[in-house]
């Protein structure tokens, strides 16, 4: 293929110009690309006209193409979502979220978390949507549902499907991913979250992050957060999270539908946390690339590289 030839010639040129490389003596380096969405809200098709700046944007079939392209260019990729997949278009009313989750599996998502709107049809319908995704016949494996602050003792059918965290191993980098959800009060009708108790997300995250760092020995800790970016009147949001729970490298946020142009760096006890969120409705795909030296400080320093288009 033309591309391979092109790559080969480039590497040769690179080696020629950079000799001697000291990489052999240094620690193992790993690279990982996090691709992410949030609050896709059943936007299966692109936004129509009359929607201002987001008119004509989005669409799950396009998202699938973009993800395929990036996966073909990059070795280590995780595709993640920060919740509120449900509610927003007639597709949800008609297909009850089953279509959203099935298409997410076809696109190749690795994990998501649950937002408040994912409970809009109650716990039973949520489980049905998850099951329909798991039962889909497709080469991509089912994706994981991550959350560590919902106590599902009273809803075991959901409890067995929610995992507190996920560890994925890539060449030179081990990634730990967990998730947190926003409080139900005032957002989810009691009958729709029956059997599930919301717990303090900071207190729930602390032991999970500790476990990921110390026992699972991950290099990178990622939190899928449906807390919202900046709640003026609330105690819980993505900007406050790093200061409360040390040791998180990236927060992939949702709930507030915040359009950020770039991740925001938030200082925390062990360095910096990147907090990112890319609007809503699937109009954007977020991308964060981490290049790590194994054993080095994990929080990102933000060395910029050129933007891919």
């Amino acid at each position: 293929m033309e591309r391979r030839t092109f790559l080969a010639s480039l590497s040769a040129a690179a080696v020629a110009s950079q000799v001697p490389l000291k990489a052999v003596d240094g620690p193992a380096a790993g690279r990982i690309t996090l691709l992410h969405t949030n609050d896709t809200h059943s936007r299966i098709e692109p936004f129509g006209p009359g929607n201002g700046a987001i008119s004509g944007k989005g669409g799950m079939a396009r998202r699938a193409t973009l993800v395929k392209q990036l996966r073909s260019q990059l070795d280590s990729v995780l595709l993640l979502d920060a919740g509120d997949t449900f509610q927003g278009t007639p597709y949800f009313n008609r297909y009850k979220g089953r279509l959203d989750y099935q298409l997410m599996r076809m696109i190749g998502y690795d994990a998501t978390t649950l937002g408040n709107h994912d409970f809009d049809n109650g716990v039973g319908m949520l489980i049905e949507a998850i099951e329909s995704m798991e039962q889909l016949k497709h080469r991509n494996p089912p994706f994981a549902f991550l959350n560590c602050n919902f106590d599902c003792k009273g809803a075991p059918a959901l409890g067995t499907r929610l995992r507190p965290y996920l560890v994925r191993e890539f060449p030179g980098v081990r990634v730990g991913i967990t998730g947190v959800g926003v409080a139900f009060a005032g957002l989810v009708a009691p009958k729709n979250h029956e059997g599930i108790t919301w717990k303090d997300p900071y207190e729930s995250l602390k032991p999970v992050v500790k476990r990921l760092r110390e026992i699972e020995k991950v290099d990178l800790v990622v939190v899928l957060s449906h807390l919202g970016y900046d709640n003026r009147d609330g105690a819980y949001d993505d900007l406050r999270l790093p200061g409360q729970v040390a040791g998180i490298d990236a927060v992939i946020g949702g709930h507030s539908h915040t359009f950020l142009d770039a991740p925001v760096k938030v200082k925390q006890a062990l360095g910096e946390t990147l907090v990112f969120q890319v609007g809503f409705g699937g109009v954007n795909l977020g991308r964060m690339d981490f290049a790590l030296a194994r054993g080095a400080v994990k929080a990102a320093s933000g060395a910029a590289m050129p933007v891919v288009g």
Partner: protein
Amino acid sequence: MKLKPSSAFLLSSLLSLPVMAQPPGTKAEVIPITEAIPDDPEVQKVIEPLAAEIKASFGLPLVQAPQGVFRGRRGEENLLGYWVSDVMRQAAQPLVGAPVRFAITNAGGLRANLRPGQLKVGDIFELMPFENELVVIELTGAEVIQVVKEGLLRRGGEPCSGVKVKVEGTPQQATLTVVWEDGSAIDPSAVVKVATTDYLYAGGDSIPTLKKGRKPFTTGVTLRQMLLDQCTAMGKAGKELLPPAPGRYSVPVPILEAIRDKTFKL
């Protein structure tokens, strides 16, 4: 496969960076999903027949709305919300067999404007995607005023039907006046029927006084179905859907700003 020039640029930059000079670091960006990205054929094949199904059922015409009905920008009155709460009141009356003096919904639950022209079934779904149900409760006059006040402090006034609300003065010193829509005073001890949604009655969107509602009557009618029925009836009668008149909320701009900044108390 041909690489786009920008991708080639990235690859060349990656490959030309000396490995050790690369500190632990990141690169990050937002990639807009635009029409420049082709549809994935496998995913599009799943969507297409479903989109056709949706279009068939949601393309059915309902009623003409020559001016459209809009939520209004911040500081403007939510005429769409007024219309929805008017329909709530009107739909609730025959269901409970008694006058319903007041209705309130939440602006956050109205998810799209009604654009001018022929309204279709899909437009009502976009406006009201939720399965929220119409509920009728009983409140005292004093509680109705309190409900209005709570909506005001939270969002500068939630859309309602049956009353007129006036805030006067400054953010530091303001007075609130709530009267029935005909200008008559609200008797604080009178018991009245109030239409709202199961979501608000359960404490959603922080209007806590609605939770005090007594004798709840759950109608079993979703707000969406209620709006669909109303539009169908108007269409059949050859009527046009026009926005309700403004003038239900009168709040000075500095006070609206103070509400937004959460510095306003009443």
